[in-house]
């Protein structure tokens, strides 16, 4: 951990607000959003998960720098922050592709063929579940139920729900969406 980080909020130790402003924190406005979240919880430890949520929302993933920044601000041991960030499935420490496709593997989807849907996407786009394509365009993830079981099997593409997909056509549907967004 570098000592050039500015601890936001509370002054350190005997009241002196520490040291040189860090370029990255100043340059990137997204840290302001995380800062606001932590301020809402009075920079107390119970705001950790909320802070990680806003960090992940702002950056798409949690990198070392951001984790250290939150660690400093909330005055928690790094082990605790890293432990929480890795415990919950929702948080990811790896950068994601430009687009994200999530395949639901809940019970209803599962018995309606979600496995086949997943392998169709995997082979159609050359990416394994949990990974990102070589051109960094598509990340493929799995989830444990969106609660849209009536539409099973379900996938989401960039947050948009696509229901009643079929293994034969699903790879094409995704390719089409990737193509349309590339045109934009």
């Amino acid at each position, binding site marked *: 951990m570098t000592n050039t980080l500015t601890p936001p909020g509370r002054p350190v130790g005997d009241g002196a607000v520490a040291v040189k402003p860090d370029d990255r924190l100043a340059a990137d406005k997204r840290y302001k959003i995380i800062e606001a979240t932590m301020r809402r919880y009075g920079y107390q430890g119970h705001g950790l998960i909320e802070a*990680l*949520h806003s960090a992940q929302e702002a950056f798409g993933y949690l990198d070392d720098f951001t984790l250290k920044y939150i660690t400093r601000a909330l005055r928690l041991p790094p082990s605790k922050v890293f432990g929480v960030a890795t415990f919950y499935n929702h*948080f990811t420490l790896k950068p994601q592709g430009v687009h994200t496709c999530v395949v639901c593997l809940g*019970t209803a989807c599962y*018995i309606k063929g979600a496995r086949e849907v997943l392998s169709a996407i995997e082979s159609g786009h050359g990416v394994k579940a949990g990974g990102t394509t070589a051109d960094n365009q598509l990340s493929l993830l799995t989830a*444990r*139920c969106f609660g*849209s*079981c009536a539409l099973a099997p379900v996938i989401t593409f960039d947050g948009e729900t696509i229901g009643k997909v079929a293994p034969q056509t699903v790879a094409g549907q995704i390719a089409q969406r990737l193509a349309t967004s590339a045109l934009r």
Partner: protein
Amino acid sequence: MNLEELNATATNERLAQAKKNHHLHVCVGTACQALNSEQIAKALQTALRQQGRNGEAEVKCVGCPGLCSLGPLVEVASRVNGGPTQPANESPADANHRTAVLYQFVKPEDAEEIIAHLGGEPVKRLETPLDQPFFTRQTKVVLENCGKVDPERIEDYIAVGGYQALLKVLTEMTPQQVIDEITRSGLRGRGGAGFPTGLKWGTVAKADPNRYPTNVPEGIQSRKFVICNGDEGDPGAFMDRSVMEGDPHRILEGMAIAAYAVGANHGFIYVRAEYPLAVKRLRTAIRQAQRAGLLGNAIGGTAFSFNVEIRLGAGAFVCGEETALMASIEGGRGTPRPRPPFPAESGLWGCPTLINNVETLANVPPIILKGAEWFAGIGTEKSKGTKVFALTGQVKNTGLIEVPMGISLREIVFDIGGGIPDGKEFKAVQTGGPSGGCIPAQFLDMPVDYESLAKVGSIMGSGGMIVMDDSTDMIEVARFFMEFCMDESCGKCIPCRAGTVQMHRILTKIQEGKATTRDLQILEGLCDLVKHTSLCGLGQSAPNPVISTLRYFRDEYLSKVKPG
């Protein structure tokens, strides 16, 4: 807002609604929204304007009416004779229901035709009958407002009698009277285990906040807490999501009543991050209730104050377990801890904590308004009231249903669910998610209540009900749930962490045809061990899908193992 102001708001809202002869309810639950139902609402509004009929009709976005498989759904409720003659004490929902028409698979292009037919013959090609068993066999208590009220307008909830129960409790009842009423109603926890709600409330009310060391963070002024458990992690279950999306104010009202009864001034709603729409609607509802003086300080002009915060889950199934959930609210890893002390005595930050499921809390306002006797009149001797189920899988009508306790599985699957599609045979129904079991055809006539389900090796669970037809491989189902538990085990206690991995390994071996009868014996031994020695509910119930499939579908296992 005090009682008089609340009544005035309700009357005004009802009068305003009564001016319109037609009410178009567009479902904007997650499933219908995924099918563009918001576009439909816009198209209907445009069509109303174009045809110059916006004076006599209104378009309302509502929560889930239940029949998700036919979505997007639009309900058109019209009054027969027209004119604002509706009696003030009749809710618009009741009055309208008599002449309602339900349209299925609606597309934005259909809007003009629907509007043109308002007041005349309904559009035949889109109509789906409202007198089909799916609707007539249900008894709606928790879901009575879902599909009727606009979840983003507090006035709409007030117009159907919302927050009346809260103000009644605050002005006319003592906390003990509230607890007695809930106890007499026989309400039991809807999260799955079925613990008597009144007993839980009574324990928290009596608990001494100073008995255990506490460390409440700065800025929170309460020494007891109420938590609403909206971490609906069971795959295949979406009851709580629909209530949070379709009727968020009712949950807030239920929480406030619970807080008054147990003496808490601060509450948390723990919602899965996978339910963004529910989070958004709950946030809106909290803001509106605070502005109306129905949450916050001095509620309804009384001395009672109660604040609610939302906390997001982050994708950990184990956080549905109460002690793990509280660890997560405290900002840590969601791992359970041994009980006792129970949360009722030492919970969140060491304070006495009441933790109830979404559906349990949603049952509270009607019990207060209509009385414990009314509620106790529904259901069976030991299981009172209704239960919401998410009916999914290989069944014609998938969606959200609410039935009285004690109804038979046959009625649910074949009458309400419409039976198995594609001419296949019913094989089993899975209840309780990864903690439950598979119930075979021989128990179809068994009543659905806490005790009967436990007797056949399943549990009520939070309400996922997945129907399987004869093409389903039961070992694969067991393996699916075991894989789930293996991934979701938090790793704190060894039986669950290591046992689920070993059981999954044996199930995989069976599926690959490499197992022997000796492996089956080991599997059964492991089931017993994990069930009895795990720390929390996740591990204790993880073997249930294996045990129940071994019990009822042993042939399938035996056909795949070699003697050895």
